[in-house]
């Protein structure tokens, strides 16, 4: 890009003790503190009903916080309605106005921002250019494909050069192939323009792929905040471990801790790994399916209960005294048969200790 088509006025977002209560006692968001740095893409991730969309809508001004303070830049916007906030949002359904052409849709917000007609038009066209929809300006939204509609919605939000850009599950109406491409486009635009973006999704893979930082939410509260890597490799608790990527949670006994290293025991099998501040006693071990080693000599005794061939790898369900685990193996040429007796051990990196 030779000249920036659209500049950015990215600003940080800050939540201070924000709660949202619907009706009398339905707590959708419970006293959360959150800081989104300017120019970063932060994802709100969680199962449905965890309060992530409500949080997003409170940034937009579509819901008003019941208590607490919300700041965008250094301005307190807690009581400001959506109209008066410098924020724009891309909706799950895109919410393109069906009676307006693509250009009119993109121009819509600009006409309320005090731009002259000509300039509004220029900016709208530049926005369409940016999302790769040059020449589509006279069409109606109904004449576009789903992916194109999505890009119009992004352009419409972008051209306002908002302090914060919000995405509410923007990919959920696209098919799987398009999803990967659009999310890469969104990430590219965000990084090129240095936008502050808050992004809601329930798809952990999508979150891992696009985010600078992920906020995992559960039951109206924040479970953990961290980079994708931190969350995947060092989840705080069972919920995060299970929600971000799949994890097998096994009961284990910490037999000793030396410095930063703990030794654990499961069914007589011993394994060393970082202690993460835990002390000897009962604990939980989170192991990703790919970090389980299946062999014959050392490890925990287990039996193959189920074996499934999925093309690129084998998926196994193992049972034993520890309960049940799910494991994947890259070796598809010599699959194990159901009923086979094996020994299960863990990769040296990957498994994480969690408090009981």
């Amino acid at each position, binding site marked *: 890009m030779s000249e920036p088509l659209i500049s950015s006025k990215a600003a940080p977002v800050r939540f201070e003790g924000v709660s949202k209560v619907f009706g009398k006692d339905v707590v959708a968001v419970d006293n959360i503190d959150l800081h989104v740095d300017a120019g970063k893409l932060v994802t709100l991730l969680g199962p449905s009903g965890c309060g992530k969309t409500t949080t997003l809508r409170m940034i*937009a*001004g*579509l819901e*008003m916080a019941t208590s607490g303070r919300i700041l965008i830049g250094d*301005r307190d916007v807690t*009581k400001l*309605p*959506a*109209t*008066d*906030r*410098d*924020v*724009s*949002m891309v*909706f*799950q*359904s895109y*919410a393109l*106005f*069906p*009676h307006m052409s693509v250009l009119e849709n993109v121009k*819509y*917000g600009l006409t*309320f*921002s*005090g731009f002259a007609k000509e300039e509004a038009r220029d900016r709208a066209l530049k926005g369409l250019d940016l999302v790769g929809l040059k020449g589509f300006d*006279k*069409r*109606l939204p*109904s*004449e576009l494909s789903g992916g194109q509609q999505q890009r119009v*919605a992004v352009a*419409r*939000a972008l051209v*306002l050069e908002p302090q914060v850009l*919000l995405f509410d599950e923007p990919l959920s109406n696209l098919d799987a192939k398009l999803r990967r491409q659009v999310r890469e486009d969104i990430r590219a635009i965000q990084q090129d323009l240095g936008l502050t973006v808050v992004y809601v999704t329930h798809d952990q893979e999508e979150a891992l792929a696009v985010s600078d930082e992920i906020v995992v939410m559960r039951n109206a509260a924040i479970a953990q905040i961290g980079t994708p890597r931190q969350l995947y490799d060092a989840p705080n608790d069972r919920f995060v471990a299970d929600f971000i990527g799949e994890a097998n949670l096994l009961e284990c006994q910490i037999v000793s801790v030396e410095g930063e290293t703990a030794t654990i025991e499961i069914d007589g099998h011993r394994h060393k790994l970082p202690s993460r501040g835990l002390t000897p006693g009962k604990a939980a071990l989170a192991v990703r399916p790919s970090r389980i080693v299946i062999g014959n000599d050392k490890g925990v005794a287990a039996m193959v209960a189920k074996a499934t061939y999925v093309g690129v790898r084998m998926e196994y369900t193992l049972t034993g005294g520890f309960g049940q685990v799910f494991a994947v193996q890259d070796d598809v040429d010599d699959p194990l048969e159901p009923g086979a007796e094996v020994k299960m051990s863990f990769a040296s990196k990957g498994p994480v200790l969690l408090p009981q």
Partner: protein
Amino acid sequence: MRSVQSERTTHPVLIFWIIAGWVGFCLLPWYMLEDGIWSFEWLTGGYPFDEDYAPGLFLISQGEKLWLAPLLIPLALPLLALGRAKSDPLYAKLLILSGALGFGWLIAQGFGIGIRGFNYDWLKALFGEPKIRQFGMGYGAMICAAAFLFLLTQGIAARGAINGDVFVVSAIGGVITIVTAFVFYPIANMLFSAFITEDGAYSLSVFAAKFFDDRLWGLGCLWGARCGAAWNSLFLAIAVGFITTALGLCFALVVTRSGFRYKRAIRALTVLPIITPPFVIGLALILLFGLSGSVTVFFADLFGTQPTRWLYGAPGVLIAQTLAFTPIAFLVLIGVVEGVSPSMEEASQTLRANRWQTFKTVSLPLMRPGLANAFLLGFIESMADFGNPLVLGGNFDVLSTEIFFAIVGAQYDQGRAAVLAMVLLFFTLSAFYAQRVWLGKKSYTTVTGKGDAGVHPLMPTGLSIPVLIIALSWALFTAVVYAMIIYGSVVELWGVNNTLTFKHYVTAFSVRFEEEGIRWTGAAWDSFWTTITIAAIAAPLTAAVGLVTAYLLTRQSFAGKNAFEFGTMLSFAIPGTVIGVSYILAFNVPPIEITGTGVILVVSFIFRNMPVGVRAGIASMSQLDKSLDESSLTLGANSWQTFRRIILPLLRPAILAALVYSFVRAMTAISAVIFLVSAQYDMATSYIIGRVENNDYGLAIAYSTTLIFVMLSAVGLLQFLVGRVQIGRRNMLAVKDTT
């Protein structure tokens, strides 16, 4: 940038209403003009100093109407708010104070001082009895009142209500105010007048005497004498409710679950109640079964018996109402019967139930709420019906006509009319309430957004034959009745001289072409043009009020929303006669003095038909995804801009429907209208009733036929326009694809 702009946008609205307040007070005539709203004679007739035409300010400066002087304070207060930011607490306080003071004082002085001085004894005791009096509010006072109201709502918005949204708060305030003024106030006023004795004192015994009157509650019909009007109305309404529901169900079953070939023709029945003036069916029945009706005469000749007047009374009213309201039940039930998901019935069939068992155990129970709804609608319609009992009632007194005769008859008894209206209102409101409770608790809607590929099974044979016979014979009877209407309009004198003639049309609608243009010489033109004009004025206003209310109900949440909804829907359950009576009682005297003008007709139509607009609006607004509004808001449009640029354009078909429907309903209304017409503003329906009372059936029927065709073309035009909106879009697409 956006924040700067939003600080600016609040101001034009504020400035507008401040200016409006001052203009209303200083420039426009304060009081109601005797020559009506549209006369501009006041501009030349002594304005601004003549007492009748003077604006408020000139009145005070001449030492007249000094009680208007305090209004200067609330008018001046908002000027102090002009320089302030919206977030300044003083801004909100100033506006609220100004609005509340101004509006409150306007109401207080309006009710306190009437045509004959103080309206209340304690005021007289307090101030003595000076020679003061005033007339109804005119331009100036109305605009002043509106200015105060909207200053108040802006103040409330500035304090943070509904996120400080001026448009929404103002819309809520506006709708509440007009509904209070034109629905609750007249009704409450009328209820109070039931307790007033002839010399103006309040008394419970007067009410009791009128309430326990034998003419109201007598049960004589059980042993051969006459029953009271209340029982007559109740029995009639229950019978009509049952019969119309049963017939409506038959029609709905024939259309959705039979192999009958001419379903479209039967569906056309649903248009009939919309386009039929309310007493036309009564007239047609007289032509068929009256003393000199064709059927009566035929049988009298056949058996050599004396023709009887059996039609006049309960049987005639029952038949007429059943004919008139069956299509309404049909309309309700066809939605319900179609709404039963075919997959439920298919599931039942795969579970080894046969068609009869499926119908009895699955289809019929799922239709139950619809049946209740249809029954209650028939009940309410029958209770409120005025035209048919008036034409066919004979000695069979029902509440709606009794109210009319209490007011216009020789007895002129306001109190009795009020008592009767209370009883009628009690019945209809109970039914209305029952309907809401019933429908609120039991929702059997089984059709969801998901595609449902199933097909409704046919009715079991044992059921389909009787249903088909009943439906077809009733459809045939309806067709005959409507044919009679057209035939009757071209017959010289029914039963006496059966030669065909266009005489009646000529009398009613003749025109002469002269040098200075067309002269409308027909007898009916006056009332015809008045009707068209009033209906055309009322229709857009009805649609506007209805759609704004629907917008508030579907898109906004605020404290007291349920009460708000109930209030706006209430006028649907209030019979027209009750509205009519309450309007003449309430608006005959200041502060709102509009009896005898065209305004009162327009106002009554707006509030009679508003629920139709509200329902149409709610139905189509709930089809619009809320994210459309939200995205408009996050793009920087405020709620008014969102309403105007997103919601209204997408609601075009609903707006058209509301417009045409309220236009047509305004043309066919009779029950409220008959109280409100005046020599200057006579409506088509009341003119026709007048002809009927003079036994001039030919002219009445010719006029009714004309109305039916006018309304049919209005409805047709609507279908055409709504259809074209969609086609136009498709053409546009096609054109674009080819370029």
